[in-house]
């Protein structure tokens, strides 16, 4: 990809860019489809149910059928809604979630973009989705949607900060914002991964990331029992699907980022397990993170919005600052 980046934009490399973009889109759509399937199966098993098992073999086509249903549904826009904003909001929410996928390195030589400011790029883009959600809530002209959108805005702002600060420790250790360098800096034994020296940072990151994802126990913006469906209340059909897609794409991105930053990316847990390709290891760790998030959903009740705020500002933020401080001190001593 770097080779093409250096050249002038011609038809040839434009085609390469477009095709790789489409390829990435298909990959992410495939993953999102089977995330949802996986989530429903995991939830089902945890709740003494069987989950989807009718559409296709083992219910594998269930999500496909659901998406098709959403596509052929009537597209309703409330009369008093702000039409332009209402249409724009799902797009704003989705596009950044897809863009951040570009920088994830899946293997030593398997990546789309080798960006030196990779982590910064991720964090900067991920913040934009909030605008889409707040906009969607506001443009719907519905009180529940508005409340959901406001909650979401407040939540994302207060969790973005600890999220960024918690990864600073990793950046300090690796000395780079480039995600490939960060993975390369982590060793081949599992205790050489960043999760061990950065355990505090990892925990803060995990909590903040789940809050960013709006998932249980932090799923307040769409708290069904309080706010119907939060900012998505007035959305239907494909626009609704876009919001869902954005949410699951972020899950994909966050799980991948956790793997890269803390779990050693493509490294095997021990050097003698080298014969298994890095992509497999990456995928296993990635799947473990995704499973953890689904597991939480089956277990946890929802936290209250004021408790959410105090958790973010009074606990996570100071903890992540402490983490930076400890990292700096230890690095200075060890040098």
């Amino acid at each position, binding site marked *: 990809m770097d080779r093409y980046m250096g050249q002038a934009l011609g038809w040839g490399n434009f085609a390469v860019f477009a095709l790789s973009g489409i390829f990435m889109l298909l990959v992410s759509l495939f993953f999102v489809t089977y995330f949802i399937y996986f989530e429903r199966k995991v939830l089902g098993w945890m*709740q*003494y149910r069987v989950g989807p098992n009718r559409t296709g073999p083992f219910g594998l086509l269930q999500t496909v059928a659901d998406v098709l249903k959403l596509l052929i549904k009537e597209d309703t826009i409330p009369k008093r809604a702000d039409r332009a904003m209402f249409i724009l909001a799902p797009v704003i929410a989705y596009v950044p979630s897809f863009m951040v996928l570009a920088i994830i390195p899946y293997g030593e030589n398997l990546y789309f973009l080798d960006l030196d400011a990779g982590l910064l790029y991720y964090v900067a883009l991920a913040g934009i989705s909030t605008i889409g959600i707040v906009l969607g809530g506001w443009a719907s002209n519905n009180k529940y949607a508005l*409340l959901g959108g406001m909650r979401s805005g407040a939540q994302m702002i207060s969790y973005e900060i600890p999220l960024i600060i918690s990864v600073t420790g990793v950046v300090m250790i690796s000395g780079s914002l480039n995600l490939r360098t960060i993975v390369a800096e982590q060793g081949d034994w599992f205790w050489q991964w960043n999760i061990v020296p950065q355990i505090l940072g990892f925990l803060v990151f995990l909590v903040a990331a789940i809050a960013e994802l709006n998932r249980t*126990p932090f799923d307040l913006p769409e708290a*069904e029992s309080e706010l119907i469906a939060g900012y998505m209340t007035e959305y239907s059909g494909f626009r609704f699907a876009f919001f869902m897609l954005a949410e699951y794409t972020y899950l994909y991105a966050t799980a991948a980022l956790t793997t890269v930053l803390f779990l050693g990316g493509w490294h095997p847990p021990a050097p003698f397990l080298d014969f298994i390709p890095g992509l497999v290891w990456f995928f296993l760790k990635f799947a473990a993170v995704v499973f953890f998030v689904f597991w939480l959903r089956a*277990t946890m*009740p*929802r*936290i*209250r919005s004021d408790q959410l705020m105090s958790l973010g500002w009074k606990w996570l933020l100071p903890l992540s600052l402490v983490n930076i401080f400890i990292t700096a001190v230890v690095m200075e001593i060890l040098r």
Partner: protein
Amino acid sequence: MIRTEELTLNVGPQHPSTHGVFRLIVKIDGEVITEATPVIGYLHRGTEKLAENLNYTQIIPYTDRMDYVSAMTGNYVVCHAVETALGLEIPERAQFLRLIVMELQRIASHMLWWGTYLLDIGALSPFLFAFRDREVILNLFNELCGARLTYNYMRVGGVKWDAPEGWIGKVRDFVKMMKTRLDDYHDLVSGNEIFLARIKGVGAYDAETAISYGLSGVNLRCTGVKWDLRKDQPYCIYDRFDFDVPVGKNGDCLDRYNLRLEEIRQSLRILEQAVEQFPEEGEIMGKAPRIIRPPEGEVYVAIESPRGELGCHLISRGKPEPYRLKFRRPSFVNLQILPKLLVGETMANLVAILGAVDIILGEVDA
């Protein structure tokens, strides 16, 4: 200066956590509620008026539909009122069957509450666990009377159907299973930090307020008032069994949660004893007259339904139909305290408080 204004939010009648068709008009300032006005009556069917043109056997199915998650207590209260007016003797076996189904019903009702309450709080799985275990009770009832929700099981003078062979054994198995399940419930939920943070100290009131609002059942006992009609005004054959009346201390949602789970345990104790003493043989219908004409006069009976004091006031003019039949519906009475509890709380607490009151809209609106 930023101009701020209050938002009037219409919660219900089609809101997911109003448990039916309850409507609440709340004024909110940010997320804080400044005023709450409940609107009821969406499920009003005029049960009491309809009863004036029906004979007593025909009234019983209507009581199924009042508190539809605890239909057996509804059945019982109207039969009990008529039997008291007639001075009718109920056979032993029928008494036991009535008691067993009422206690099973209490467990089923509290389990349904447990599941839906946690759904309100945002936890998904407990709902499915509760429904799986409640299913056992519904199957037992199905075997007994052929219905899973609206049983129409009791009659003036006894019960309609005798227990089929092996039914008592199944109840015994259920009690054994449910004891371990109850521990599972506690393991799963009761110690969860998030859950405790959500409901501890929320929606608290003291005993004086509870009594002045006429609350009963768990909503009263959570403040520390030990008042359970099964103990204090024994009906049926409750005085023969050994059980405790758990009470709370703080009167908050957590106390109400703990009490309901503890009541399941006490009901299991009663069931255990009842199953042991269950008479082998015997009639299931007393000597009720063919056409039931209670003597002229008034009678008021009250029983402890899972939601509180379920009363039935019967005025008879000696005809086959009642002159007036009035039900004291605990959900309706318990709901009155809601506007007082909600002021100053946040939207998230709204569902926690409303859920903990445990209302059934069929009973509120009757």
